């Protein structure tokens, strides 16, 4: 006999989402996330990126609402990154876990909010995962906190906690997948065709990479992978195959693209789709494998794999039905936002890869090869005097490259230029931008209306009518076997 009333279904859903599951998966994710971030931060420092990203620039592109943020002076940014590495290690060890993950996430978010040109999708994902982890008791197992204070140990967590993290990962894959549902990607194999053609020097497989149909096949494979991999990971029967594909896919992205920690983050995140007790089974197998040769290690592995009696017996904090529902409502609202927010680019119409409105925080990963040449034309209406201003005057080459393809950043720099002219005694100068931009190898086209005074544009989320329509000609088709569809048209 089932209760078919809405209230009954709701209760069943709430009960199901609160059903306890093994904490092992969440704890393992905490450890892997902390270690990965520690390694990532150390790598960031070792590569000397603090200087060009935070110290050298004299101008920083601001996020709306965060224009008050400034880089720490002196060696402050170096110290911040060193602190982030330590905090990430604390997260992995589960030492003062809640404080560590909260501080890590806040510090990391602060650094990423300093300059829009530093935006990366996987940095955004790290912040989101950090925020979620800060609210989840991932220290209940295999943590120094649990060892120090047994009352914080526990063998289970509510199901919704794992589901929430799974959902976050699913959002990334699914949106990244459907973002590829565009003619450039699926019909013209761009930008993969451009990138792969440049990598023909890769041993063994290199000679295949300038074959246009290989790029097309890879484009479709990428589309199917992103849009369906979550389903394959969720289905128990296909999960091992899917994880193998995840490993191979992300390793290839690491080989071909300068994509940083992304190829590491996603396989680690994919472990969230395993059965919640997978770490214990993994340790048990490791114990069996080590048993013959390393009995000492086997014993330690066995202890780690076992559910601690105190943890297993630890009672869940009693929650009222109302608190449970409120919690789920909050989680539901977060999920709804995550699911819908990346879709906002549809509200703007046109080609998001061109106008870039709704581009950030939408998991549009590696979708465009876009380069531009931007020249600012400044005019003093009083004297009629005109100047040309190169962005290089204020930006480093990396910032220039990022700015030249993102209209809102061009506007920000236009405002900065106007302010500098005002300091020089030229009040109310007009600043126009001549932005020749090539999207996926197309003939360069003007991205912004060159007649619009950008100094008078107020940044907003409204549709920008000062951005010109995207070019309608097809993108470049390069390499061997590429059908020359538009040679005459160009």
């Amino acid at each position: 006999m089932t209760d078919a009333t809405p209230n009954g279904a709701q209760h069943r859903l709430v009960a199901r989402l609160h059903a306890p599951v093994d904490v092992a998966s969440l704890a393992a994710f905490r450890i892997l996330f902390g270690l990965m971030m520690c390694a990532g931060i150390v790598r960031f420092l070792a590569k000397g990126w603090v200087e060009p990203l935070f110290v050298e620039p004299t101008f920083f592109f601001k996020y709306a609402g965060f224009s008050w943020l400034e880089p720490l002076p002196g060696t402050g940014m170096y110290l911040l990154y060193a602190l982030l590495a330590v905090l990430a290690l604390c997260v992995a060890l589960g030492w003062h876990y809640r404080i560590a993950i909260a501080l890590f996430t806040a510090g990391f978010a602060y650094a990423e909010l300093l300059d829009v040109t530093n935006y990366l999708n996987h940095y955004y994902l790290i912040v989101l995962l950090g925020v979620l982890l800060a609210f989840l008791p991932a220290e209940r197992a295999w943590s120094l906190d649990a060892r120090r204070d047994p009352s914080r140990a526990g063998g289970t967590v509510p199901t919704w906690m794992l589901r929430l993290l799974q959902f976050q990962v699913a959002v990334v894959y699914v949106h990244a997948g459907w973002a590829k549902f565009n003619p450039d990607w699926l019909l013209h194999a761009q930008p993969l065709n451009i990138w792969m053609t440049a990598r023909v020097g890769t041993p063994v497989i290199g000679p295949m990479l300038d074959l246009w149909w290989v790029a097309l096949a890879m484009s479709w494979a990428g589309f199917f992978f992103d849009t369906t991999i979550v389903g394959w990971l969720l289905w128990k029967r296909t999960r091992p195959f899917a994880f193998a594909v995840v490993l191979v896919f992300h390793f290839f992205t690491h080989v071909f693209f300068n994509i940083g920690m992304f190829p590491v983050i996603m396989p680690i995140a994919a472990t969230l789709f395993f059965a919640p007790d997978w770490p214990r089974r993994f340790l048990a197998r490791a114990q069996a494998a080590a048993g013959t040769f390393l009995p000492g290690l086997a014993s330690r592995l066995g202890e780690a794999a076992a559910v601690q009696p105190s943890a297993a017996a630890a009672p869940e904090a009693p929650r009222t039905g109302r608190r449970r529902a409120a919690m789920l409502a909050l989680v539901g609202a977060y999920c709804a936002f995550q699911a819908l927010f990346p879709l906002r680019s549809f509200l703007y119409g046109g080609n998001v890869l061109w106008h870039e409105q709704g581009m950030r925080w939408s998991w549009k990963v590696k979708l465009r090869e876009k380069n531009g040449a931007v020249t600012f034309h400044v005019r003093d209406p009083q004297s009629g005097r005109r100047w040309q201003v190169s962005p290089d005057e204020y930006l480093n080459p990396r910032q220039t490259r990022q700015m030249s393809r993102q209209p809102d950043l061009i506007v920000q720099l236009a405002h900065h230029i106007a302010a500098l002219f005002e300091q020089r005694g030229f009040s109310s100068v007009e600043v126009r931008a001549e932005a020749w931009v090539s999207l996926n190898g197309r003939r360069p086209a003007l991205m912004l209306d060159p007649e619009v005074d950008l100094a008078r544009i107020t940044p907003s989320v409204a549709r920008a009518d000062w951005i010109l329509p995207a070019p309608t000609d097809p993108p470049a088709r390069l390499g061997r076997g590429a059908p020359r569809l538009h040679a005459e048209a160009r």
Partner: protein
Amino acid sequence: MERLRSPRSVLLLAVAALAGVGVVAACSSGGGGESGPTDSFDRRAMLANIGENVILATYTEFRDAAQELKDATAAARVAVGTSAGVATLDSARNAWIVATDLWQQAELYQVGPAGSEEATLQGEFLRDRIYAWPAISTCGIDQEIVNQNHDDPGYFDTAFVDVYGLYALEYLLFSEDPEDTCPSGTGIDAAWDALTATELAQRRADYADAVAGNLVSGAQALIDAWSPSGGAFLRTFSEAGTPGNPYGQAHDAVNDLFGALYYLDLMTKDDKLGIPAGIHVECPTATCLDRIESPWAGRSKENIAANLRGWRRVLLGGDTAAAGIGFDDFLTELGAADVAADVETRTDAAIVAVEAIPGTLEEAIASSDPSVAAAHTAVKGVTDILKSQFISVLDLRIPEGPGVDND
């Protein structure tokens, strides 16, 4: 079959696949792995042609021209105050023009030893030894005319680059101003004022000859750095991506070359044309004639045209499209012949526009001749397409220091 379907088998297969890919990755990321195969377009052939027949050939031509310049300055030195003085000085001036025209093409080739170590592999910044503009100090040159230390064997090893090279020679050979260019208080006024006109001419000629001699050795050092018997950068460049080569892939060397070509944007378009003409914001007044590149010889316009011709030779792989493999062939082979044609058309248009400036660039700017703005627009047309479609289609990267992650 059942065994293959087990999760463990699948993971083992994945690990094996990753190991295979790992080998591929390891080989592709370093210079010590297996030899990378060539693709349908042989980048190494392009690099070899550009390296040998464009860059090194230009260096060699320049070295020969520098030697003729040295001979001419030596003749002018001994002829000061004689009836042959004017003629030998004219010969030296003409020799300087020939050498400078060649070097202005080579200005675009700051890849390898000519470039800075931050910007290019094996950069030694040998370019500065030949032409350090805009790092210039006429006052420093005047001080040397007074101090006469240039006969010391190690003088050019310790002197700043802004007092020798082609720019110093232009000042020494073409300037007829009897006054020094140092601000008062520099300490040379009395000594300078004590020089007779002939003494001044003699000292200028003496120093010019010393600078020309150093120019020859600078040019030779550059050639040596490229030649197989010396630094062998030509081999490094043209065999990029082969085992042991510091360029992991041939494409990395292509990128280095492209980075050097950014000279066209930053120096040719902005520093040489935009700023003196008052178009560029760095000029605070209506015009900035004090920023003109060649104020004494009046060759600013010709220098800009030579820069463009230097780029054109890289684009075409030589003086004509049929001369050798260049970027035009690369683009055409990839299927972007239209881009190659567009870039060539824009380059030719820019050369024509620059050469159409009447008189010297300085005169044209002073008279607000519209041809200057037209030339600037035409040069910008070249740099615009280089920074947008050209860089996109070839998947090149602007020189941006340490390559950070992206996604």
